[in-house]
């Protein structure tokens, strides 16, 4: 599904990624761990098409060269990024945002736009799965949301937009243990053999709830080690010292 070959990235002549390789197949869960500043968010941003990076290398998604697609086209093709810091958009109702987003994606896939009723039904179902109060959805997008609420809202969006590849950028940071479990349940219930996850995290904690097939250690813009779930446990003990 996703093929990254020798990805390099620079910002203002500063090298952030230095030849990164990664292959993700449908049904797989990959975790990327690494110290602060190792380039994890940069990787997520480049995959989702954020401007401002000078890149080299190749990224293929579903047989298509990603660099030819705009940010919204990537989203429409099924790449979803749960942001490390979800943005506040004052005056925009969360429900309206979700619906605009879902319908843009459906339109791009030549699917019929959802009418208000079917949409509300869908939202109701998905938000109750995540224990999100409906009232919360008529609030302005992310404005005044607590850290945990913002992250849950990202997972709600994921479940509604149904991406092929979901990238979670430190969705676990700042969550208390209950919220963490809810987020993990959200991921586990969405996971199937057609979609894939790239989970960026700092801590082993989340991986107690979401079993990754692969764990990659990112350091100085490169994957320096790949292993299975065991690697996470090991990292928890030793830290990243061996990799920097």
């Amino acid at each position: 599904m996703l093929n990254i070959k020798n990805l390099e990235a620079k910002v203002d002549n500063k090298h952030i990624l230095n030849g990164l390789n990664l292959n993700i197949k449908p049904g797989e869960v990959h975790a990327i761990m690494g110290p602060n500043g190792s380039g994890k968010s940069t990787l997520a941003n480049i995959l989702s098409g954020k401007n401002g990076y000078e890149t080299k290398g190749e990224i293929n998604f579903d047989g298509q060269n990603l660099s030819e697609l705009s940010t919204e086209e990537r989203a429409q093709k099924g790449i979803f990024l749960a942001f490390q810091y979800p943005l506040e958009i004052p005056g925009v109702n969360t429900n309206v945002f979700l619906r605009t987003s879902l319908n843009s994606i459906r339109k791009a896939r030549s699917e019929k736009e959802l009418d208000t009723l079917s949409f509300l039904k869908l939202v109701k179902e998905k938000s109750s799965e995540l224990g999100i109060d409906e009232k919360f959805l008529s609030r302005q997008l992310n404005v005044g949301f607590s850290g945990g609420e913002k992250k849950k809202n990202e997972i709600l969006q994921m479940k509604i937009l149904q991406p092929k590849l979901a990238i979670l950028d430190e969705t676990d940071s700042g969550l208390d243990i209950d919220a963490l479990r809810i987020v993990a349940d959200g991921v586990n219930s969405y996971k199937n053999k057609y979609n894939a996850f790239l989970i960026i995290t700092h801590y082993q904690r989340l991986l107690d709830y979401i079993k990754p097939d692969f764990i990659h250690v990112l350091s100085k813009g490169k994957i320096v080690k790949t292993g299975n779930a065991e690697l996470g446990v090991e990292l928890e003990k030793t830290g990243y010292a061996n990799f920097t």
Partner: protein
Amino acid sequence: MKTEDLKNTQEYKYGFSTDVENIRAPKGLNEDTIKFISKIKKEPKWMLEWRLKAFNRLKILKEPDWQKPKYPKINYQDLYYYSAPKSVSEKPKSLDEIDPKILETYKKLGIPLDEQKKLNGIAVDAVFDSVSVATTFKDELTKKGIIFCSISEAIQKHPDLVKKYLGSVIPLSDHYFATLNSAVFTDGSFVYIPPNTKCPMELSTYFRINASETGQFERTLIIADKGSYVSYLEGCTAPMRDENQLHAANVELVALDDAEIKYSTVQNWYPGDENGVGGIYNFVTKRGACRGKNSKISWTQVETGSAITWKYPSCILQGDNSVGEFYSIAITNNHQKADTGTKMIHLGKNTKSKIISKGISAGKADNMYRGLVEIKNKASNSRNYTQCDSLLMGNKCGAHTIPYIKNNNSTSTIEHEATTTKINEEQLYYCNQRGLDQEEAVSLIVNGFCKDVLQQLPMEFAVEAQKLVAISLEGSVG
């Protein structure tokens, strides 16, 4: 989006002109022109005298120059002050008598005037250059005793009301442009709502500038008698021309005891091209008097057009417990300039005012909020709340906020909040990541920013205004 597409969507959709034969007053600002206007409108003598009095005042007044947007000197002798399609210079008695070309114009503008297809429950007065061409739903309103007609007609048929209230809010010698209007105003709307009557539909005037080298000077007078209510909306468009055209209107509102007037404007005059050539100078005086106790006047404006917009819809809160509100969205793109805001003058006790201003600048445009809140010494327990938010798109535009605050009563309070934000690349990226393209994203964010004001508009117009907001900013990001 391809550049080609962008060009097409960005184009000012109302920029066409209508080819009709006109009757014009000779060029120039002088007594003869004023007499010409008064005569062609068959005005009574007192009206002509009133105009001439204004003209004499004008001679000693100076054009103001304290505003931020500067403009090249206007040669007032080189303008036409009266231009009317020949076919309607005698006001047509029925819609059948209106030149089909003019009806077609309004149809293109989305304002069908023929009785069959008139806008849903909205009575429309259509002003084409210097004359009112049609007023719909007249009979229905007449049954309730509501008068809704052109000001020219009101001068002839309801002289007592006009005499009593015209100039009672904006005095003859108020300032240069208001006085100019008093001397040469050509048409506009007149509304009178009798006591204890709730106007059963939205009243609306649609102003269209068509002729070139012509100034438009319209005059609107709305009187809400005791215990009445009216919601009034004006819309404006003009053809694309490479000259600057002057539009200097006066709008006077009077609310008596327990009456309420809601006045909404969607101003979309031609803004000029992307290099700043052409466009309307929109120099307008709008003022409302809350003359009775418990009266209320609420101004809502969505200003997206014009090369220069310069206006301060104001409320004079005379009656005890009266309420004044001002909700504004001012959008400037390319080389557009806006210097707009309000004046809230608190005279009565327990008077309240609220100001919500949203300024959006893009391109090389400049947007200024300028507002006065004055609480006089007798206005005890009065309150004002002001919130001014500016949104910048790009690095070449500007936003400025100048509040003037005068509180002469220690029991009264004035509260002012202001914010300036830049449309945020991160917010756009977030929206894009959720599948919205750039235009959708901008529209969503900007409409969110304007929400407090948009929701003040009557339903039908809120949707239109929302689209207009998006269109006027198309192509301004990324």
